């Protein structure tokens, strides 16, 4: 079961950074690609992740299991997909109302990326909860988990910026990320019903 949790955490890290990088591309046609656009994106992602950690940690207290864990991924997938459908009209709407591209890009990143990033931020603390078996081992587990999920983030950044954008459309990449989250959700939920996480409840 541990291996599955590490795999899921890795995927979560991968998707977060891939989405963050694509965020710059999504916003550029309306707000440019200046440093403040990246400032907006990074601010929103960091804020959302911090909230996600808080909520994920809180949610892991009662009855932690793979079903709930998988549902985080399901929620992430469902809330990320609207980016493909509604990014354009949302930015158009903001563009006509906010003249300053700094606040325009901040508002756009908040509306587009905050909710899915909060959900994805819940993954890390919840993973720690599922993995930790003893107080003594908790630090090591957390360390390993950060290692895996941050490695996922690094590779998500690399693959997206070096290769994905050279071959695929942004929306296609977003759909692939959504599908990756969905498959992780299916894996976790399947394992739950096969009773693999039973001892955790």
């Amino acid at each position, binding site marked *: 079961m541990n291996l599955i949790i590490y795999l899921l955490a890795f995927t979560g890290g991968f998707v977060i950074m891939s989405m963050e990088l694509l965020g710059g591309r999504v916003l550029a046609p*309306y707000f440019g*690609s200046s440093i403040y656009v990246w400032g907006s994106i990074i601010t929103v992602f960091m804020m959302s992740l911090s909230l996600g950690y808080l909520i994920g940690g809180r949610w892991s207290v009662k009855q932690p299991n793979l079903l709930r864990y998988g549902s985080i991924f399901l929620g992430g997938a469902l809330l990320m997909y609207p980016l493909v459908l509604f990014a354009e009209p949302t930015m158009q709407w903001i563009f006509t109302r906010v003249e300053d*591209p700094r606040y325009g890009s901040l508002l756009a990143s908040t509306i587009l990326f905050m909710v899915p990033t909060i959900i994805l931020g819940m993954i890390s603390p919840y993973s720690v909860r599922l993995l930790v078996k003893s107080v003594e081992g908790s630090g090591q587990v957390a360390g390993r988990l950060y290692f895996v999920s941050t490695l996922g983030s690094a590779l998500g950044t690399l693959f997206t910026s070096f290769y994905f954008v050279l071959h695929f459309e942004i929306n296609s990449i977003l759909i692939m990320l959504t599908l990756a989250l969905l498959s992780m959700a299916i894996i976790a939920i399947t394992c739950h019903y096969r009773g693999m996480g039973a001892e955790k409840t």
Partner: protein
Amino acid sequence: MKLKLTIIVFSFLLTSAACSPVDAKILHEERSLYSQLIVKQIGNTVCLQFNVRSDQRNQSCIDPRRPKEMVFSYTRMSMASLLYVQQPQSILVIGLGGGTLPTAFHQLYPDAHIDTVEIDTAVVKVAEDFFGFRPAENLKVHTTDARVWTKRALMRDRRYDLIVLDAFNGEYIPEHLMTQEYLTETRQLLRPNGVLVANTFAQSDLYHSESATYASVFGSFINFRVPESANRVILVPGEMLTKDELLARADAMKGRLRPYSVPIKRYAQLIARQMDDKPDWRVNTRVLTDQFAPANLLQEQ
């Protein structure tokens, strides 16, 4: 062994000394938010360079004794657009550089309204301090992202007789300014019979992608080249002119363009010969869009 090494080191020093322009003096250097700006005095000319590696396309030069003279061929070539627009009332220039083109347009058509869009405030300052660029009532500079500005201009129903796209002079290409969507927005800013001219990439895979993208928005265009330079300039005329019309227009304005050293008569002849050329790029190349815009990666290929 030691002797060999000494020879190598010595010859290296010798070549690097021979290659460095001895009379180049740096007048100003700054790291702006968007690029490295270096203003150099090279012989009699003052040049603005956008990064350490220097080639024609990242430079803007002026000879202070003959400030109107256009030093680089792509700047002169852009002036060929004037063959297709007589007495423009409104002109839009994307990318300021040293301000050579907007300044020339302002001198040639003092009554025309000229908008210039430049993202980098440092470039505007350098253009004013070293290149004699002087904003005026009808020669405005907007320091903002060109894509954002274009969208706003459309909302305000601005239209132009002549649009110059010259935004790529640094190491990094702003990819959102090289997509089908951006060109479509820019085309909407053109008046009927308005002319668009773009200084673009002539090498690498990007040549094919960029050409295909322009073709997807503007249909056919004139792929203007001159034998003495590796540049190409994309010319999108509002109306096609015959060879005789081109030559007649060139004749009418060659006197006014002489101080800028623009050989407009020769350009007219070249354009007349090139205007029916078949595309020399790979026509099935994937078009660049907001969704697919790896311009910087393509440039390396």
